[in-house]
């Protein structure tokens, strides 16, 4: 009996070793790096200092943090508003249609993200299809400025993140016991009331998982705002990117990353406190 337990644990060993090496050690390395001073060229050196963190407290960085969090929050919110009805519709659809809808969500995953973002660039450009349509309909005299705006970044983010909302909500809604919804109707709830008092609370694990899964990566995404955003939107991810590759300030870039990591940890902690589990994130 005891032997069997040991054997089962042994199966997790390779994964544990991998995690310790490539996640644990690298994290320690980054944290250590963030406490060093800037070194010669592209390096770091002693003495140890908290200077990097103190620097983050200056208004420009705090503003960037605020913008990043706001964008991530809006992304998660719009993913919920669009993704939830879609997932709900998918569950209600007949099995054949369901497969196709699921493919619709998953197939974009198989295409390179950059290529897809370039697709948006074309769509949003001054002479792109959207502007052509708007002008053809006479809704505007001159092309709208769509590309290189916060709006474009938000659209791109929502587009990139939406599968991470649809899938957990879908798996929660799929397991929903519909007789409970019928019970609500039977007890006098209109379809809308039944939705908000029964369906939403019962799919809450999926909603929470979706919010976490869309919010967290959205804080750190940088290439989207690089490609679709204006030059004045400096998000946290862009900041890390810049400090690392342009300013070549390794310890400061590490400190910025640690802040991002801490935020992520905080969100997950909140999620766990709300009763969310890692399992609901897996579909």
């Amino acid at each position: 009996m005891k032997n069997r337990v040991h054997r089962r644990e042994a199966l997790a060993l390779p994964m544990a070793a991998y995690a310790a090496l490539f996640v644990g050690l690298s994290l320690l390395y980054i944290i250590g790096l963030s406490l060093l001073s800037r070194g010669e060229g592209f390096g770091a050196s002693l003495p140890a200092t908290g200077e990097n963190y103190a620097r983050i407290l200056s208004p420009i960085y705090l503003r960037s943090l605020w913008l990043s969090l706001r964008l991530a929050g809006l992304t998660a919110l719009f993913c919920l508003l669009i993704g939830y009805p879609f997932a709900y519709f998918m569950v209600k659809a007949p099995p054949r249609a369901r497969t196709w809808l699921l493919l619709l969500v998953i197939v974009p995953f198989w295409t390179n993200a950059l290529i897809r973002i370039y697709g948006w660039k074309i769509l949003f450009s001054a002479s792109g299809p959207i502007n052509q349509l708007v002008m053809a309909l006479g809704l505007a005299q001159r092309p709208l400025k769509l590309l290189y705006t916060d709006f474009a970044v938000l659209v791109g983010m929502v587009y990139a993140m939406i599968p991470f909302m649809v899938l957990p909500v879908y798996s929660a809604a799929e397991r929903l016991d519909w007789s409970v919804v019928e019970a609500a109707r039977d007890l006098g709830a209109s379809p809308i009331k039944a939705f908000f008092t029964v369906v939403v609370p019962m799919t809450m694990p999926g909603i929470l998982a979706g919010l976490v899964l869309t919010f967290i990566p959205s804080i750190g995404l940088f290439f989207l705002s690089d490609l679709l955003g204006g030059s004045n939107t400096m998000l946290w991810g862009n900041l890390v990117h810049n400090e690392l590759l342009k300013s070549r300030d390794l310890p400061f870039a590490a400190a910025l990353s640690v802040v991002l990591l801490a935020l992520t940890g905080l969100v997950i902690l909140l999620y766990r406190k709300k009763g969310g589990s890692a399992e609901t994130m897996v579909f």
Partner: protein
Amino acid sequence: MAEGQALLSLRDLHKAFDTQEAISGISLDVYEGEFLTLLGPSGCGKTTTLRVIAGLEAPTKGVVLLNGEDITRLPPEKRQVNTVFQNYALFPHMNVEKNIAYGLRMRGASRQEMREATEKMLALVQLEGYGKRQPGQLSGGQRQRVAIARSLVLSPRILLLDEPLGALDLQLRRQMQQELKRMQQSLGITFIYITHDQEEALGMSDRIALMREGRFVQIGSPQALYEQPETAFAASFIGETNLLRGRAAAVRDDGALIEVGGISLPVDSQLWISPGDAMCVSLRAERLYMSPVPVKEPCQLSGTLAESRYAGGERVCMVHLPDGQVLKSRHPTEGEAPLSVGDQVYLWWHQPSAVLVRDDLAQEAL
């Protein structure tokens, strides 16, 4: 009875799923305060019937009248009819109190009203003090009670119960049967109750509607269904019976002679039959008497005792008739004659015990 008197009327209801008809043309009147049971094997359309009454399923054809008012197209939330679901369907994210108060909340009741009504209901189903529990912390029987309380709190005109005791163990089921019956009588609420358990149906119902393949086979009091089944299916589904296949030899006003294996048996009957018709005679196992010697009774058959099993208060016997048919009989063990397997025996009965029924099982029997 007169048209206006029925609380609920089903008129020629049909419901098809794709091309499959779940119910095909059922009509029924249910009266105020009645305990009506829909009884039948699984897949006979009982649950579909209940769902049509609840408004959870729209009939393909036909009309549902509640108090003479057409409610066929009314959504479930607008019907004064509530359902106790088979799996209870409690709200897992609400505690017992909130589950029970849900319907009142939907009606916009005040907190005070909800609290009072919930307390009353918890007392009614004997779950005082359980208000703050989550459904997951309750036993099957307790969940059942919450489901009933949740429906009864709305004082429905009719309570629909879909095999509410199906998931409970035997002892608890017996107890809940009595409690449900007591509740129904003291509240005076009309119950439409689904079960596939004929014993449950016999013990609780004012009337039973026996269903088979989407139609009603027979509707009547438990006693009428047990004593006067109209078809072989009804006779065999309710209680234990022997179905003897034979032909009508002679037909009189109040009965007939049925020829079974060369012997003519007199049977009372009001059925329209003509000589030569293939018929069944239903003989309840416990209404048969056994004798080692012929008796002076017109209703008797002889055969070989093939099996004899002692079961405490009664003995269960199998008797092979010369024509190959088998009769099962049950006898009190008190003062029984010593008989052993292989003996020639005579089974006899009082003429009213034999019921002539239409043979609606013939296809399956082949």
